[in-house]
């Protein structure tokens, strides 16, 4: 299933176990991300999706196993939210320039994502959900990353909004060649763009190409039968667009 060979491995996780106190959160996770790949992680609340991200960026201790990140790998992280208090005055431009290891190319990319020059001088606390997501994505692009990590980046967006957002992600992958690992709830939208889907529920329930995951019994038991309908709808579109997975 995994095409190795001339693919460059960016992130390689092997038999990862993470626990908070006695509670096991992640069990035996093995997962790789190669250049140019889009991998989506789906799973119910509390299934350890965000914890997996934290393990990758090294913000929590791991119990056993290994997380190997390619040397000098530049990571762009798109969080769900910013803890921005109204007492903190912060323009979009200043926020973008807070990014570590930023460069001018990255800043141009970020501006393209913003889609509007007015936004640069806006206060972050006044942004709409859609604008904020674009700003967060822009921030992640400031260092021209090799990998983008997106943690439920479309939370709070409506369907056209998230569809547009994912289109941007695909564009980024095409123009920059950066790999993308994302957590998502918008199953039907996400599935289109992904090379691989991983169902997570503490452990990896199933993984593979979107179609095979959608058909798997583990997936159905995790998300119920309702999603099958939306997926079927989606698959219909997919074949018309004719984009190979």
């Amino acid at each position, binding site marked *: 299933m995994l095409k190795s060979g001339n693919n460059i491995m960016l992130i390689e996780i092997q038999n990862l176990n993470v626990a908070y106190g006695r509670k096991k959160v992640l069990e035996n996770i093995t997962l790789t991300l190669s250049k140019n790949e889009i991998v989506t992680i789906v799973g119910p609340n509390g299934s350890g999706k965000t914890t997996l991200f934290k393990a990758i960026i090294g*913000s929590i201790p791991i119990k056993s196993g290994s997380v190997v990140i390619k040397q000098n790998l530049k990571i762009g992280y798109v969080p769900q939210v910013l803890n921005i*208090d109204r007492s*903190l*005055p912060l323009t979009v431009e200043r926020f973008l320039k807070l990014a*570590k*290891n930023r460069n001018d190319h990255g800043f141009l990319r970020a501006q393209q994502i913003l889609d509007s020059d007015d936004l640069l001088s806006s206060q972050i606390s006044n942004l709409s959900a859609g604008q904020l997501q674009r700003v967060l994505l822009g921030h992640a692009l400031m260092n021209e990353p090799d990998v983008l990590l997106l943690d439920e980046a479309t939370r709070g967006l409506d369907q056209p909004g998230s569809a547009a957002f994912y289109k941007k992600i695909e564009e980024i992958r095409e123009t920059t060649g950066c790999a993308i690992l994302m957590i998502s709830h918008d199953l039907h939208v996400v599935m289109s763009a992904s090379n691989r889907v991983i169902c997570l529920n503490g452990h990896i329930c199933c993984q593979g190409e979107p179609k095979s995951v959608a058909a798997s019994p583990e997936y159905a038991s995790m998300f119920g039968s309702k999603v099958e309908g939306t997926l079927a709808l989606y698959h219909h579109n997919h074949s018309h667009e004719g984009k190979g997975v």
Partner: protein
Amino acid sequence: MLDDFMVRAALAGMGVALAAAPLGCFVVWRRMAYFGESTAHAALLGVSLSLMFEFSVFLGAIFVSLLMASLVTLAQGRSLFLDTLFGVVGHMSLATGLVVVSFISGVRIELMAYLIGDILSVSKTDILLIWIGLVIILVLLFWRWSALLLCTLNEDLAASSGLNPRRESYALTIGLAIVVAVGIKVVGVLLIISMLIIPAASARSLVSTPEKMAVFASLIGMLSAILGLNASYVFDTPTGPSIVCVASLIFIITLALSFFAEQFSAVVKKKKES
């Protein structure tokens, strides 16, 4: 020049204001006001112990506030009721400090000076300590500014760019401990938190970037120190509370100004539209 008590008071007041204001911005942004207050209360235990065993009040205060800061950093992420924990530890120390002091004869009156400050009695050594503390805090803030901002906005975002959010927030709490220790002589444990948050809050409505907020807060803090000192001389009022009163007055004025500016711009906008 330093022999004039008013000059000494002005140097001490400005030093504390300048150290407290930019740090206070982070206290406001990170909603650490209650933590700051508890740390300041806890410092009174350090003061009492130093009076009892006759060592430097500054050392006692900084020791206890650093202890408090470390305790809280340790507890972070482990305890769900951090705010309550701050309150318990802070007030436990305050109460213990007050009880301890009652065993020492003759210092009861002096204690008032540590609760609300006694800026007119600062010595040359006090001024030196205050300005050393100020330099440490300014260097710390200049050096860690962007990192601290990023950690404030989102810890995972900071971690993904190679920062250690825990270490950054520990640096901030150490800065806070220093401000509390140097501020005790000037405004006292009860009022030091106001030197942190009031100038920052006053600056908020005047600025559009975090850096400007820190600069304006520092200016407002220093202005409050000078005006408060003069007011206390003219009206013969306690100096620490006078400084805080002036700072509060500036806060009210900037709040009113920003309110009217908003109303005004709304009217202008309406006129343009019609």
